[in-house]
């Protein structure tokens, strides 16, 4: 019963993307945004067992730092919400313990960033610990939040309506996001977010395109952008199905 939506990528990288979706209501756009932030399960360390910690920071502080390290999340269906993956770290000073020093028992769950310093160890200091990672959602703890700084804006249509009077100085006109100019999608960063750079000497009109939203999605590395968006959409769908079944009783 799924509906087709018109999705078009404006910018696309592994961890950051901008895409246009047409034909959705503002409420639905916000639903997707919220699902990406709070409802897509990702892996993160939840309990840490310290075997030795003679560093300058407390066990609790180090546990929090380890918890915030993003871990790659395995494909859907591979893990349940109660499964754990154990990672271990063993570093002896003088050295710095990095997130990359975490050794995982599972190839699917690895630190997404390897250069995050956990703790600097001096001579004779040592950190040895075991950590359990679990799958959970952003609404339970920010460490499980796969999406970072996710937002959307209306697509804006720019139309040239005429020339400026000959001796009038043009004022800058700041627009942020993506504009549609004669059907062509242009990120505003291309002209320094200022319409007077793109249309010198012209008078332009800007209006929101109804029901067209440009999403800006960034991830912390635990999922790639595409995976995050599809899982968010799936989570909305499963909630809707659940509601439908509950209401039909």
């Amino acid at each position, binding site marked *: 019963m799924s509906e087709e939506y018109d999705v078009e990528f404006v910018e696309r990288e592994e961890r950051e993307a901008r895409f246009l979706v047409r034909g959705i209501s503002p409420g639905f756009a916000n639903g997707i945004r919220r699902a990406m932030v709070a409802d897509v399960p990702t892996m*993160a*360390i*939840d*309990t*840490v*067992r*310290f*075997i030795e*910690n*003679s560093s300058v920071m407390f*066990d*609790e502080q180090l*546990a*929090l730092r*380890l*918890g915030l390290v993003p871990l790659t999340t395995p494909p859907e269906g591979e893990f349940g919400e109660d499964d754990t993956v154990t990672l271990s770290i063993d570093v002896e000073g003088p050295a710095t313990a990095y997130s990359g020093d975490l050794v995982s028992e599972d190839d699917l769950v690895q630190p997404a960033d390897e250069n995050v310093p956990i703790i600097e160890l001096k001579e004779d200091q040592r950190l040895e610990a075991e950590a359990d990672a679990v799958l959970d959602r952003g609404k339970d*703890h920010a*460490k499980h939040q796969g999406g970072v700084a996710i937002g959307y804006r209306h697509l804006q249509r720019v139309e040239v309506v005429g020339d400026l009077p000959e001796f009038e100085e043009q004022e800058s006109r700041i627009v942020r996001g993506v504009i549609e100019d004669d059907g062509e999608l242009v990120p505003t960063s291309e002209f320094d977010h200022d319409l007077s750079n793109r249309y010198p000497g012209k008078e332009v009109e800007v209006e929101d395109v109804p029901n067209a939203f440009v999403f800006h999605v960034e991830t912390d590395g635990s999922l790639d952008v595409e995976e995050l968006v599809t899982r968010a959409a799936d989570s909305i769908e499963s909630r809707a199905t659940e509601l439908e079944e509950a209401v039909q009783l």
Partner: protein
Amino acid sequence: MSYKCSRCKRDVQLDEYGGVRCPYCGHRVLLKERSRDVKEVDVQ
């Protein structure tokens, strides 16, 4: 209870009669060593 003298860095065993004092150098500041138990911490 095992402690460590903060001046001479030697291990000190305290009993209930001796008071808090290092038997080797007489220093009165003793540090309690971290337990060898594995400590489990929740990430919060």
